[in-house]
């Protein structure tokens, strides 16, 4: 077990996009470890490969070369069905645009990952209710996403990412659509509820207002990690 204790292990990961005759190397040999109990931020300018890297880590894009293990599992080697199942049970997602289903209530939105994993509706609603209490939205369960503020919607998205107890949570620009105070509050919720000793968080961001919430910051440029900085989170 070469990578035991690591949530994510990337070694020499290369990913190239091909459009017609044009080839663009989005990842040029990424080496990265993410430990359990850690909040790692991936930062860098637009087009540097941050989103491609988390897509590879989350198993929704296959890399071309190198190794990428998530809790010692190589998702690229899995069949499509097995990979989908593994992703559904192991990884939680928080998106920049929240991606809450607009016609479902807050509670129903949070039940979705559980229903996908085969949980009964009653049990899913009970668990969703508990997680919504944790993120401070216990009184909004019947609301539609459109009736909530941006910060509240992102807290619903966090609840949805947490509800099925995934061991890795991947967040894509979770605060870029929010003002500074709301962004800070969302990060506090994320750190307070999502981070635990057996779970890791990877956050892609270029919002320097939230850098102080990270345990480590991996800076990327032109498809490479240029530096990894350690810091004490607030």
């Amino acid at each position, binding site marked *: 077990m070469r990578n035991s204790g690591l949530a994510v292990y990337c070694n020499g990961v290369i990913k190239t996009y091909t459009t017609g005759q044009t080839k663009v190397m989005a990842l040029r040999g990424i080496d990265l470890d993410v430990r359990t109990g850690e909040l790692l931020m991936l930062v860098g300018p637009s087009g540097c490969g941050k989103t491609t890297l988390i897509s590879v880590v989350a198993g929704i894009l296959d890399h071309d070369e190198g190794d990428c293990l998530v809790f010692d599992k190589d998702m690229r080697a899995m069949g499509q069905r097995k990979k989908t199942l593994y992703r559904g049970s192991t990884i939680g997602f928080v998106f920049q645009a929240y991606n809450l289903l607009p016609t479902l209530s807050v509670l129903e939105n949070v039940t979705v*990952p559980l229903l996908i994993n085969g949980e009964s509706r009653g049990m899913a609603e009970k668990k969703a209710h508990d997680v919504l209490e944790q993120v401070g939205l216990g009184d909004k369960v019947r609301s539609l996403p459109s009736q909530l503020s941006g910060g509240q919607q992102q807290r619903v998205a966090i609840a949805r990412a947490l509800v099925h107890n995934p061991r890795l949570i991947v967040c894509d620009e979770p605060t870029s659509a929010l003002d500074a105070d709301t962004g800070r509050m969302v990060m506090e919720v994320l750190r307070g509820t999502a981070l635990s000793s057996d779970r890791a968080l990877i956050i892609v961001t270029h919002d320097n207002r939230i850098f102080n919430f990270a345990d480590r910051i991996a800076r990327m440029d032109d498809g490479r990690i240029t530096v990894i900085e350690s810091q004490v989170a607030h």
Partner: protein
Amino acid sequence: MYAIALKMLMGDRGKYLGIIMGLTFASLLITQQSSIFTGLMTRTYGTISDLSLPDIWVMDHKVQFIDDLKPLQDTELYRIRSVKGVEWAVPLYKGLLKARLDNGNFQICNVLGLDDATLIGGPPMMIEGSLSDLRRQDSIIVNDVGANTRLARPPKEPGGKRIPLKVGDVLEINDRRAVVVGICRVSRTFQSQPVIFTTYTRATSFAPRERKLLSFILVKAAAGEDLNALCDRIRKGTGLAAYTAQQFKDLTYNFYMKNTGIPINFGIAVALGFLVGTAIAGQTFYNFTLENLRYFGTLKAMGASNGMLLRMIVLQALVVGAIGYGMGVGGASLFGFLLGGTELSFRLTKEILYLSAAAIIIIIVLSALISIRRVMKLEPAIVFKS
């Protein structure tokens, strides 16, 4: 996940109603136009349906449909009676004669002259009077629709209601006196003319002078006789055409199908309903899927398999299909019910229901296939695009 699929569908009210309306329109138009077509075609052989007693219709071999009259000599009746296997054979006169109304106008009527002795071939339902009243002098029986509409008397005052023809009223048919002794109900005819029943002898006296006046010979086969074999014997023995009632209906039906523009006109209307329904429902359903691609991508990223998404889309398509079909068929039935007593021909059969259901299934399968293809090819990485 199925409940979520339905909420996704019904939550977008505009598109949901758009899809339902498209399918309802298609189902309504296909069902309604097909029912009118079937009703119209049924009318072409209404007289044959009403005359249920005879097994076989004998006529000139060049007759192509029920209203294509090529009269026979009266002596043909005796030849038919002599054919082995014939239980009885009676004459039937059928012709279009002019009836003179009180206001001086003329109305073309469909006159049926029945065998004087047996009155075989009489109307299936008497509303007033009885069939045997035809034995009275100058007597005729008129169908209720004709009595209430085209043969009705002019109103007593301008703008008033027309007065239906009733028992005891007198008409002139080809300058001869005819007394109404009964009102009956028959299947509507293709040309919607009033139907008048009388005896064969009286009908031929109403008719203009011609050498031959016998339109058809109605035959009852002896018990246990094979009808097709008997038809063959009649054909070979007399040189006349002989059809079972069903064969004569088919002959009439096929004539109208091949020689009139009716099937093409209705076919175009049905095809238009199908095409417009497909376009509206398919386009709206596809738009609905396109607008939800981000959410389908989110579900995929969260672990929903292609199979699960496929089942969700199929369920959505089935629900809108069932609702649209039900509303369309319901609307068409209501249309038929409300206009049941009018000139409109409307006959909704179970075959039309199957046809409409098949058309709606094709529409939703096409709509769903386009959407499914898009969702199956969807890269879950779409969720990381803002």
